[in-house]
């Protein structure tokens, strides 16, 4: 049976209602392009005409020039690698600690009572404040810099995991108990999969915040890495490189967020709608 709607469409609606899609895409895309272009134009104008203190800032042209050179050096790739590794290690460590912890806290009240108050006490302390302690505790310079992304990402992932467990419909637990599941089975087959949508959105948020943190560590006590390079460029008055560094970090951070979101959606094919809905969950 052919699509009756399509037939009706052709027969009775000779004037095609301008599909909202067509209209919207054209006008909006144009405006978006204008938006991005005007950003650069504005930047260029401000520097060129030495508006206020903008004369001290690099112009887009300089930034592009220096950037092109920089990207081809070894130092750039080394820095990028260093920063990326630090962030990844820190954030992954956060995932590996916060997710199991969060699952247990959400699942068992006893465990929650024993651990959650302490965590709530530690939560308001901003990540950079941990740096001195990190330097003490962890022998390598690298590890102490990676500690900041770790702390930054830890709490959002933890909170989202806990929320995820709490959101699981209690009926699933009851059904499992009726069917005679052991606690271990309940954990692996109900608690973990049920919380996955929240966990994945927490992971994405944690990754975003972790990137923020990596730069902090490198700027304060770094020897290499993109954050350090940005600070060094400032002290060496190679200002154009500052912006290049910022752009590089921005791109990497954005790419990693996209990657995480993609991976998590792949992991949870059955709950895409809920994942999208939970993307707005409160983390701090």
């Amino acid at each position, binding site marked *: 049976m052919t699509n009756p709607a399509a037939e009706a469409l052709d027969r009775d609606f000779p004037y095609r209602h301008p599909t909202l899609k067509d209209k919207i895409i054209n006008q909006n895309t144009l405006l978006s392009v204008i938006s991005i272009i005007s*950003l650069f134009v504005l930047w260029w104008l401000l520097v060129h005409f030495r508006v206020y203190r903008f004369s001290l800032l690099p112009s887009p042209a300089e930034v592009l020039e220096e950037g092109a050179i920089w990207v081809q050096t070894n130092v750039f790739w080394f820095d990028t690698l260093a920063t990326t590794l630090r962030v990844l290690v820190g954030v992954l460590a956060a995932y590996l600690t916060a997710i199991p912890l969060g699952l247990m806290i959400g699942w068992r009240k006893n465990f929650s009572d024993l651990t959650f108050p*302490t965590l709530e006490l530690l939560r*308001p302390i901003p990540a950079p404040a941990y740096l001195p302690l990190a*330097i003490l*505790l962890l022998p390598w310079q690298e590890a102490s810099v990676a500690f900041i992304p770790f702390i930054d990402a830890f709490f959002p992932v933890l909170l989202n995991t806990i929320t995820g467990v709490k959101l699981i419909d209690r009926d699933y637990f009851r059904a499992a108990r009726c069917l005679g599941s052991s606690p271990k089975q309940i954990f692996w087959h109900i608690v973990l999969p049920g919380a996955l949508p929240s966990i994945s959105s927490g992971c994405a948020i944690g990754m975003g915040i972790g990137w923020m943190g*990596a730069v902090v560590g490198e700027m304060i006590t770094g020897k290499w890495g993109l954050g350090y390079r940005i600070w060094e460029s400032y002290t060496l008055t190679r200002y154009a490189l500052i912006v290049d560094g*910022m752009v590089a970090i921005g791109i990497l951070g954005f790419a990693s967020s996209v990657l995480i979101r993609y991976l998590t959606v792949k992991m949870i094919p059955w709950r895409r709608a809920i994942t999208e809905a939970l993307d707005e969950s*409160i983390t701090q």
Partner: protein
Amino acid sequence: MTTAGYEGTQDSMFLKQLKKTFLDWSLFRKVMSFVLFLVAWSLIVIAVDYFQQIPTPKAVLMALFDIPFTAILLHIAKSFFRVLAGFFLGILIGFPMGVAIGYSRVLKCLIFPAFEMIRPIPPIAWIPMSVLFFVHIESQIVFLTFYGAFFPIVYNTMGGISEVDIRLPRAAMSFGLDRKRMLMKVILPAAMPQIFTGMRLAMGITWILVVAAEMMANKGGMGYYVWYNHTVMDYPHVVLGMGIIGLCGAICSIGINAVGNYFTRWRRIF
């Protein structure tokens, strides 16, 4: 009542009440949580002894009596000032912008893509730019906190406004409300919960940025205090500083939550 199975009900009910008041296991465990924390802390100190510099809980407590009182207050005040200045600037500029972007599709397409391009750059990376551009260190730091607060506020305001249930403005239109009054009377109240979520996020981020900025600049504030004590290897004071910062952050969070709850009290009623 002496029906079978109910014998002794009176007694065990009373006993239950008694147990509930004095033998609350949950509360007990929560207290134990802190005890465990202190124990674990002390154990770490003993186990990890590279420089034997990590302070024990007791050392931190001793340091509490040792703090330069007025100096600390000055540091706290400075940090608070920077946080609040940036935060309120963020609201002042970010809130109207968020409303404009959420309300008008044209404005959204004009402004939003530019924002999306800038947003991935972490606020800390702006420090060198900020130092170049602003003369005074205070304005450099306040710019940073403002930047950190700006994006959550704009995005959440925009989200809140564009996600208002469409039936509410429709009903308002039917009742004869024009567009301008509709914004004030219908759309903003409906978007309040989301707007305050943005403010809470912004508050958290400003504290992180203030500490980081103060660690790098040398101009007082709690972040500076922590870093300074680190450089002179006075670790009990470092930990103390961390605790104070945490406390300040918590106070701000509670404050924002209280204000937010007041403005959305129609939601809490239940």
